């Protein structure tokens, strides 16, 4: 007997087919260079969006793909930022060295904590990540001789990019650099989630206990993805430190961990572009609403979050996907 399905029947080819670029993706990345032409006075804001998108991408790997809820992800972001800042203070101001060092330190911290993370789920996991976030924040606060404590790190001196392009107030270098780093990391993440390992992560998200029954070691996979996620969060923190030229305790705040979670929920977790779209909406909304009322800018964000969770459980991208699917089925 033979079947005629008209589709790929080899698992590896199937995964390759899944990873083909959609025309909308080309459009998205083409649009990402528009700020240089349309909003040349808002490139600093654009670089903040790119950095936040990078951070959201790192959380998406563990939350959206592996089902690991974290309320302490800013710990890795902050470690990346502080490592880069401290290195620059002592003469290692080259952006690429800082980026590498920030990602390594965050990755090592992620690897160490992944042994605890892999053993728990649900509320226990949320509390553990929250606790780890508080621990790192307080450690940075106490180590004021190294971090500057609540006064922030003094003397951050980031060198020019490739020895030529300085991170100035206009944000040309900052946005170019942030966007390139975001795009490279995105390519890596995209490849990762469309691999057998990425598919295993989605299986772990669905049922971590039973994944070993199909030959996938859940704990080892969780440790790997948590470490990778920490590396990316560290890169995001390092880029922020480099493009802003400052590092303060704010990089480790619980608020930052909560914000990135909100961003992901808004955009759509486990959708690759969810964190990117969420970051765009969140940062622009914050910029606009805080201009109207600096004290109440979280109010509309709160309304939006409640609306999305109630009416678009898959986030904005999930809602769009559902709408597209409905329209297609009606027309076909």
């Amino acid at each position, binding site marked *: 007997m033979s*079947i005629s399905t008209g589709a790929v029947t080899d698992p590896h080819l199937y995964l390759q087919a899944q990873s083909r670029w959609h025309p909308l993706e080309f459009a998205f990345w083409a649009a990402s260079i528009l700020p240089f032409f349309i909003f040349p006075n808002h490139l600093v804001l654009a670089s903040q969006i790119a950095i936040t998108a990078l951070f959201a991408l790192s959380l998406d790997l563990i939350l959206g793909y592996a089902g690991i809820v974290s309320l302490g992800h800013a710990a890795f972001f902050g470690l990346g930022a502080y490592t880069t800042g401290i290195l620059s203070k002592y003469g290692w101001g080259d952006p690429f060295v800082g980026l590498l060092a920030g990602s390594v330190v965050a990755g090592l911290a992620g690897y160490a904590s992944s042994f605890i993370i892999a053993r728990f789920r649900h509320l226990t996991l949320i509390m553990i990540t929250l606790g780890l976030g508080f621990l790192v924040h307080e450690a940075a606060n106490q180590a004021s001789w190294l971090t500057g404590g609540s006064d922030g790190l003094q003397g951050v001196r980031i060198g020019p990019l490739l020895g030529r392009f300085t991170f100035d107030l206009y944000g040309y270098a900052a946005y170019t650099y942030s966007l390139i780093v975001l795009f490279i990391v995105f390519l890596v993440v995209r490849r990762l989630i469309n691999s057998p390992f990425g598919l295993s992560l989605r299986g772990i998200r669905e*049922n971590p206990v039973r994944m070993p029954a199909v*030959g996938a070691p859940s704990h080892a996979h969780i440790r790997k993805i948590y470490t990778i996620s920490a590396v990316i969060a560290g890169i995001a923190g390092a880029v922020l430190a480099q493009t802003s030229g400052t590092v303060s305790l704010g990089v480790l705040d619980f608020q930052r961990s909560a914000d990135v979670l909100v961003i992901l929920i808004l955009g759509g977790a486990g959708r690759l572009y969810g964190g990117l779209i969420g970051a765009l909406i969140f940062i622009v909304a914050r910029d606009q609403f805080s201009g109207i009322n600096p004290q109440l800018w979280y109010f509309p964000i709160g309304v939006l979050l409640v609306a999305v969770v109630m009416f678009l459980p898959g986030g904005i991208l999930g809602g769009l996907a559902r709408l597209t699917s409905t329209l297609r089925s009606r027309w076909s």
Partner: protein
Amino acid sequence: MAEPILALKDVRAGYGEAVVLDGISLELPENGSLAVLGRNGVGKTTLLLTIMGFTDVRRGTISWRSNDITAVAPHRRVRNGIGWVPQEREIFPSLTVEDNLTVASRPGSWTLKSVFELFPRLAERRNNMGNHLSGGEQQMLAIARALMTNPALLLLDEPLEGLAPVIVDELTDAIRRMTADAGTPFILVEQHADLSLALTDQAIVLERGAIAHRAPSAALLQDHATLDRLIGLRIDESRAATSS
């Protein structure tokens, strides 16, 4: 005599402090098939979970192709060739049929193409989410997913439970084809004793976590008194005749 593919020797196992199985010894030859029968709660599912490595083994050994795997992690047992279809199916609800199959894929003769040939209904539903399948389709997917690991031994835990008769017939036929045609040995835990005995070579009956009776399946199928005594089953003569 050839080495058995799987051997349990005096196994005592359970969950935490609770002992469910005691003194279990059995051997399964290459190309062999074994029906595991018994009333509810006697340890049939626990036997499969123990072979898979999901229980605490307190005594005895489990050997796979003469290698002791008693302490080997479940995912390594799968990679060594033990496939398992759990009783609860446990398919991944928000992955598509194709994703559910691909996530388990390991090199071997079972591919997406061959499992779709075995279960054409899954090919038609390949883009459906796991939770958008009927009970029978979910069961087919659970079996197909286990096959995608390209097992050298398949453990089937009540694959026909709660399914409509037409689906039971379809699945029985598929099990017969995949085991007879591919020569894959299997252990089948099933409440439908008549079907189970018709599909297998050997049978054991569990009672209170121990093997109370073992016999060739064909002989046990005719031994109505033993079946009635050990599992309270009165075989439907006509169905037994048609199944065998």
